[in-house]
């Protein structure tokens, strides 16, 4: 009973704080309203006995919100705080799209004939999760991470307007590199 109430309360918190992202005045508040929403979802997942997934959700989302603070300064031309800003673009189409998505997903959740449970959940859900991911899908998991990192690095290299010729000179021989901010290892 208590768990049911808690679960529903967490759902309400998640939705309301998610909506708050678009209502508050400052980017910092929007960011941390989003973090609160994700934390509520993480705790709800914890209540589904998926310990690892719940804690990892909280971990990753809080870290992402903190990193968003870095992007906030990098990319927001105007003061990212204090003034009532319109956080939304293209309201009508977005509202229509959001309403349609909600209807489709809610219809799916309510109307799809979900299968009945076969057997019992294993004692260690984390282990079961790990085996189902790493067992038959091991190759995909091993390849995905380096590909993602390579994509991020490549994106940054392509976006930066100082090339390696700027850093190392025309013959690529100048060491240490000519950077506006010196690094600690002297690369």
């Amino acid at each position: 009973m208590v768990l049911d109430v808690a679960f529903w309360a967490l759902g309400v918190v998640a939705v309301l704080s998610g909506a708050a992202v678009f209502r508050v005045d400052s980017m910092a508040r929007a960011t941390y309203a989003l973090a609160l929403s994700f934390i509520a979802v993480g705790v709800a997942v914890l209540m589904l006995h998926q310990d690892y997934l719940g804690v990892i959700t909280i971990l990753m989302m809080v870290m992402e919100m903190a990193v968003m603070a870095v992007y906030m300064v990098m990319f927001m031309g105007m003061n990212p705080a204090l003034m009532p800003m319109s956080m939304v673009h293209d309201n009508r189409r977005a509202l229509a799209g959001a309403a349609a998505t909600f209807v489709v997903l809610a219809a799916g959740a309510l109307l799809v004939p979900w299968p009945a449970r076969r057997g019992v959940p294993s004692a260690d859900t984390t282990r079961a999760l790990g085996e189902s991911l790493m067992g038959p899908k091991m190759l995909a998991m091993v390849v995905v991470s380096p590909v993602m990192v390579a994509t991020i690095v490549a994106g940054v290299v392509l976006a930066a307007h100082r090339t390696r010729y700027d850093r190392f000179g025309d013959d690529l021989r100048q060491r240490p590199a000519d950077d506006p901010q010196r690094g600690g290892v002297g690369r």
Partner: protein
Amino acid sequence: MGVSEILARYAVQRAHVLVVEVPGCWSLRVALERQVLSRGWQLAESPADADVLVVCGQPGPELGELVDRVWDQLPGPRVRLGLPRIEALDGALDAIQAGLVDTANHRADARQRPATPGMDHGDMDHGDMAPHGIPLAGGGEDRDGLEMDVLHLPLGPVLRHWPAGLVLRCALQGDVVVGAQASILDGGHVATRATAAKDDARGGTNAWLCDQVCAVLSLAGWPDGAASARRVRDALIDDGSGEATRPALERLRREVFGSRLLRWSLRGVGNVAAQGRGSRELPEGVVGDVHDRLVRMLDRALAGQLATPVTVPALLDHPAALVGALPDLVTGLDLAAVRLLVASLALDTTPTREQVAHG
């Protein structure tokens, strides 16, 4: 005895003192700091951290107005004291302690202060673009080509480990300085050559150099190093320059020179190139990065100890030229590097004799 009295008695054992130094009153400030630390009190880093505001010397009109603004920023309980002369130091700290314990006085003080922070012209919003009367920052392109806000921040006279009376008005993008203007408050003109005021101070130039070394090491975040430098400074003030204090100075130099982490941290920071130095009339001793200047200060102090002819490049001789060159030196550096650079230049903002006579 009520809880508030007990709390007051314990609280006053560890008061935090914010020191405002008027240019030319270095020895008074050092004497005050020594007394504060020997009581177990601390030196405050910012007005929010402070219980006590002490002004060393007789402030001019601009500095006086600034001191009033800083006084407004101290949360209660707070005590304010002016120390015009070194003789006023006797018993001053005891008076401060008595003032801090007086809770009724602080309650009265608290009642007459405004409850919410507001600008002088009230709490109005000037249109949409100035919440609480502060206009929003404008934008500009920064060194990476991103559009970032430009913030105008004065690095003011009331800062720890900062030359007295110097105001550096910076335009910041992020924490990188993109433009700056340097001035000395109250129209002070720094001496073009090293002043005699330092030699008047007890311990003379060597103690002053150790104080600058202590400032650089504190800004580099090395508490033990700064404490060693402070101890050597105190020894030089008490015992003068001579055989008794030379081993301590040598030990300090070994410690600073030998710390590889410090060298790694300060290498390349605040680099002043050799070319263009002559055209800006900067002394030779300015060339190099913060670590070079730090070691040079210690070498200069050691050379002074040995009373040998000073072969170490002069550092202290042209404070006016250094203040004039500060905006150029500082542009493009981040705030940490700016603080380290300014501390490593060992600026002596003591006013010239004519100013002192008129002021």
